[in-house]
């Protein structure tokens, strides 16, 4: 929609001569069918979304007129789709039913919620035990027809694709099936092309809610400023935050959360009296490394928000809590470590190279056969390959110093590695005589492990020759 507005300046100038058009540009909503005061209140809450709200309002038309039977609104997360619809419905007091497909695991819940919102719980209780579409339509038709357009708002509509195959086409045609002035509005993150059933359906009107630009994000984020600090300080803070995070994340909800979490740290030097509000450079120097650390931890949900706030308070570097990924490093017994190293080598080295790496007297091997042909076959890009148990044990015996007797404890360690999900069993459970495994650890992990046992794994990896 932003593209349409900017791409044809001539057309905008031509219609700019009218008062209503000018007011549309400045962000007021106008429509003859609705109360002006309510529209003004709605427009106040919908900053940066006036264009989309205006378009939606003009599609909806006057309350007693018909609207297009189904509208599909798509856009990124936190781009204001639910917000705009909810504000319009609430402020203009339109009869509506909001349903989230995440909640409605069965169609019965969906029908009940719609009937309840429109007609009250007496009608909703008329639904039989496991209602089908025909029951829903029948009960709806028995009710009195609408005085003004009723709206059914379905959020997270992409989950409708996984429901009953008839549900989506029937909902799109609801106006026709119940012969009433009802419009269904679908909100989703996914584009419409994946929703279309095989034999086609009633195509809804597609409406796109574009993402917020950097300026708009700044405007919206500056709105929840702290009351005890000035607006300029907060917008300066938001500016720094966007500078660090904008290239990684544009989700308004995440940015608001990060802004709220880190503001106290930003204001710390101000509270301690070390700097004044105008010392922008010092404030920036204080907060920027902190935000960078936030990107590695809170943004990735390595630490929870509560832990992050506690970390800020203690200011103690040594007591830094371990992130979630730190917990994947477990202490393994000696032979288990070598088994894991052997498994990694078996997964990532091709079988023909075992002779060269692990035998004492391997003789001459032609270099041309040995060297990599092209980059694509780097095993570290393709992923681990499965290997049989015999190969694992053969490599294990050659890698471990000293003699090892093949006792049951060695084999049980292999099973426990599988339970810890450091190895993955590829063959079927029934296949007992030659099970196959795959190594499921990363290069970093195995390097740490091999360092603890003084084993130089890089010398033995084919990809790093």
């Amino acid at each position, binding site marked *: 929609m932003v593209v349409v507005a900017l791409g*044809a300046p001539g057309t905008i100038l031509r219609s700019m001569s009218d008062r209503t*058009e000018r007011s549309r540009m400045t962000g007021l909503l106008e429509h003859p069918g609705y109360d002006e005061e309510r529209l003004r209140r709605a427009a106040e809450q919908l900053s940066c979304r006036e264009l989309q709200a205006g378009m939606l309002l003009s*599609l909806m038309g006057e309350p007693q007129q018909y609207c297009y039977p189904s509208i599909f609104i798509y856009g990124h997360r936190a781009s204001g789709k639910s917000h705009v619809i909810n504000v319009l419905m609430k402020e203009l007091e339109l009869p509506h039913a909001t349903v989230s497909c995440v909640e409605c695991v069965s169609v019965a819940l969906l029908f009940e919620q719609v009937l309840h919102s429109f007609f009250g719980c007496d009608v909703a209780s008329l639904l039989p035990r496991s209602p089908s579409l025909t029951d829903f339509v029948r009960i709806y038709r028995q009710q009195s027809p609408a005085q003004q357009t009723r709206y059914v708002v379905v959020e997270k509509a992409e989950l409708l694709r996984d429901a009953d195959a008839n549900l989506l086409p029937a909902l799109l045609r609801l106006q026709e099936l119940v012969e009433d002035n009802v419009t269904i509005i679908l909100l989703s993150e996914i584009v419409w092309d994946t929703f279309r059933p095989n034999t086609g359906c009633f195509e809804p009107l597609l409406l*796109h809610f574009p993402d917020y630009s950097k300026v708009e994000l700044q405007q919206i984020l500056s709105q929840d400023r702290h009351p005890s600090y000035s607006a300029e300080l907060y917008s300066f803070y938001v500016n720094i935050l966007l500078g660090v995070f904008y290239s990684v994340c*544009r989700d308004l909800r995440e940015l608001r959360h990060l802004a709220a979490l880190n503001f106290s740290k930003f204001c710390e030097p101000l509270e301690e009296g070390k700097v004044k509000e105008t010392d922008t450079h010092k404030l920036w120097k204080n907060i920027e490394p902190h935000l960078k650390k936030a990107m*590695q931890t809170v943004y990735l949900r390595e630490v929870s928000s509560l832990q992050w706030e506690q970390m800020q308070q203690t200011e103690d570097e040594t007591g830094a809590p371990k992130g979630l990924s730190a917990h994947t490093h477990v202490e393994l017994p000696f032979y288990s470590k070598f088994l894991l190293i052997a498994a990694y080598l078996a997964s990532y080295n091709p079988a023909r190279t075992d002779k060269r790496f692990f035998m004492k007297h391997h003789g001459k091997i032609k270099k041309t056969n040995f060297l990599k042909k092209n980059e694509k076959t780097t095993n570290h890009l*393709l992923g681990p390959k499965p290997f049989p148990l015999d190969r694992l044990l053969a490599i294990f015996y050659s890698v471990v110093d000293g003699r090892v007797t093949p006792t049951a404890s060695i084999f049980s360690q292999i099973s426990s590695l599988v339970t810890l999900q450091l190895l993955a069993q590829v063959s079927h459970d029934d296949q007992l005589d030659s099970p196959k495994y795959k190594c499921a650890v990363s290069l970093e992990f195995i390097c740490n492990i091999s360092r603890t046992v003084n084993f130089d794994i890089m010398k033995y990896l084919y990809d790093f020759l």
Partner: protein
Amino acid sequence: MSKRKGNISHQPLGECISQVQRILRERFCHQKLTEGLEGVEAQHKHLEELLRRSAVYGESNSVLIVGPRGAGKSSLLRSVLQELLQEKEVQENLLQVHLNGLLQADDRIALKEITRQLHLENVVGDKVFGSFAENLAFLLEALKKGDRTSSRPVLFVLDEFDLFAHHKNQTLLYNLFDVSQSTQAPVAVVGLTCRLDVLELLEKRVKSRFSHRQIHLLSGLTFGQYLDRVRAQLSLPDEFCDSRFAQEWNASVKTLCEDKSVQDVLQRHFNCSKDFRSLHMLLMLCLSRVTLAKPAIKASDLLDVSRLFLADAKTNMLHGLSIVELCLIIAMKHLNDVYEGEPFNLQMVHNEFKKFLQRKSNSMYNFSQPVVVKAFEHLQQLELVRPVDGSPKTQREYQLMRLMVDHSQIMAALQKYPQCPTDIKQWALSAFA
């Protein structure tokens, strides 16, 4: 400017606009019939004759109306019924049962619906029937009431006919066609479907009882007829409250249709699809721009709306990605170019991205692995990248994926991307990564 005082037949402009909106919205959104559908006279006559024979003369018939979505099958049936029901004899006698394949997903449900629509619940009561056929026969027998010695003709309309063919054993279809072949009650079965190959779906015994009568609504419209249709859909009827306004409006519609740029736009839409529904959607969007300040549809409206209509959805979604995600998409595009569309995994994509960073020696986009993984997961959530149906047991970084966006969409998105860094644009445009 907004109010005009005039004669008794003139209304203020606001009122006129409101009436225009009401009439046209009923036409576009609610499919209210305009007088006379052009281009389908032959089909109209055929269907009317068939239904008249059933309703008036007591003949049993079956027919299928076949046409693509939005071709006007329901409107055709409705206009024929409307005409027929104006005759007193038909209005008193004809019983209608409307079934929809989307709603009646089962034969049992369908039978209950038939019972309900024929108002025979009290007759059937708690009787237990052995089979579907017995039940249906009893229902039709029960219609032999009143003064007439023969039973009343029943019209069965089956919407989404192809869905009924998916029921178990096609019991409903078999019985309906069976009744229509035998000389019991006069029954007319009209099926509406969008599938051309609907007869292939029927079982042999069902097909043999069907009369094989099909009415096709494959429109052979020329562009001139399409333009006439646009004009007819936008014109106001003669009974409009303010005749002067109606004349002005119809004149402006006429000039609109003769405008060259508008004809180009309509030609583009005509080439995509000729049916009523997409036309109605386009005109609805134009209608929503008619306000008190601008009481007519202008050519610029149509141009803007058409641009909105034909905008690519995935390109719009690409516009909102963060820089890291955009870089990953470009890396995937390069992998697709070099390896000719073979599936890739995250490690390969990250490797490709790292190669770009090494060349540029720009530390601004040097993000750690977990941040890149989170960006990749976001792309997966938006379904711009989908896993190849393989085993889910592989590690997350090594699972094979395919890119669901193609080259032209990425290039179009890059043009419009706000403040796109030039080195990323150049990377995207370079032939080899």
